[in-house]
């Protein structure tokens, strides 16, 4: 395609001496600094409107294509999940005592985070997000603070939900680990509208 294609209505003569590329840069800069010769030119205004339209269509094209993408069969998703290495998120090793002096047992931090998630999720209306174990978990008896990010569904009392999350996590850690829990801090970062859960889950996965 030639560089020299004339674009009717969008040549410098139509744009009070400006070029389409200048106008594109001007738009990109948020129309700053204010340029009176562009702003007062009907030709430039028409061209900028066309540029904005083009940009809008470029963005919506991709979103539309994404929606229209034929749903990937589960094997495609499974192909990804089978190729990810689980060890990446294992984290630190947490010692577990054993009656035999010869045995050296550990739990991975990742496994403990899994326990924390499951415990927190068991509280009605709560979904656990990221969780952190603060303190040196590799040293037995070291005080550990658990930081949990959670979201709560609309209608649940936030303080009550947070208290129940704390209890559930504490009970679970007491049962399965030897960690000395100094504190469990729960940050509720979002409140969702509650929905009929089971059906939505099925709908989303299709």
């Amino acid at each position, binding site marked *: 395609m030639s560089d020299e294609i004339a674009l009717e209505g969008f040549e410098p003569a139509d744009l009070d001496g400006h070029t389409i590329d200048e106008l594109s840069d001007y738009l990109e800069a948020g129309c700053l600094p204010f340029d009176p010769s562009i702003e007062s030119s009907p030709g430039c205004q028409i061209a900028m409107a*066309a540029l904005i339209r083009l*940009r809008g269509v470029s963005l919506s094209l991709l979103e539309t294509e994404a929606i229209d993408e034929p749903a990937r069969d589960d094997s495609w998703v499974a192909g*990804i999940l089978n190729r990810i290495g689980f060890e990446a998120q294992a984290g630190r090793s947490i010692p577990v005592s054993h009656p035999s002096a010869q045995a050296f047992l550990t739990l991975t931090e990742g496994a403990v985070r899994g326990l924390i998630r499951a415990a927190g999720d068991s509280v009605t209306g709560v979904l656990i*997000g990221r969780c952190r174990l603060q303190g040196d978990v590799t040293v037995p008896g070291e005080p550990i603070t658990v930081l949990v990010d959670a*979201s709560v569904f609309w209608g649940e009392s936030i303080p009550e939900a947070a208290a129940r999350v704390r209890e559930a996590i504490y009970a679970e850690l007491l049962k399965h680990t030897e960690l000395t829990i100094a504190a469990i801090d729960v940050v509720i970062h*979002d409140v*969702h509208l509650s929905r009929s859960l089971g059906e*939505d889950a099925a709908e*989303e996965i299709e």
Partner: protein
Amino acid sequence: MDVHSPPSLSQADDRTIVGRAADGDVRAFEVLVRRYGPLMRAYATRVLGSNDETDDVVQESFITAWQQLSTLTDAGVVKSWLMRIVSRKSIDRIRARKQHVDIDDFEQEAPRAHGPERIAEAHSREAALSRALRAMPAQQRQCWVLKEIAEYSYDDIAAELDLPTSTVRGLLARARKNLMREMEEWR
């Protein structure tokens, strides 16, 4: 653990999903794959110019994402973070092709018989753009997609495509003109 069913993960916000996935929750990662996979596929297809390699590129992107997820400090930007990864992987493919064939040879392939654009016919303005993009030379299209969809700067595009910034500017100017002509004709 409990009789009630937990709130659905597939409905959860990005921060929850990303936090869990970064902690090693494979189910949360699956939600991320289903949530953003289609957009990443559409994007990779646009950059690559055909969907032959899209599946591979998007799969590789997600594997990288899984490995690096714990480095993502702001879960709110996960979408653009994933788009960056898929951009990079797509460009790697283009570079690999370059070593074998002149890149424009790829554009001679017949367009896909089925796929996103067929359905997009319903959206006529988008269909016009889709046709125009397919008709464009590869480098023009790549520059356009990186600039307008992935929001790369001129310098970033130049670095990614191993081209001088001035060449990128020229390619984008031509792409813009071509697309405007097509779109205005369509109006």
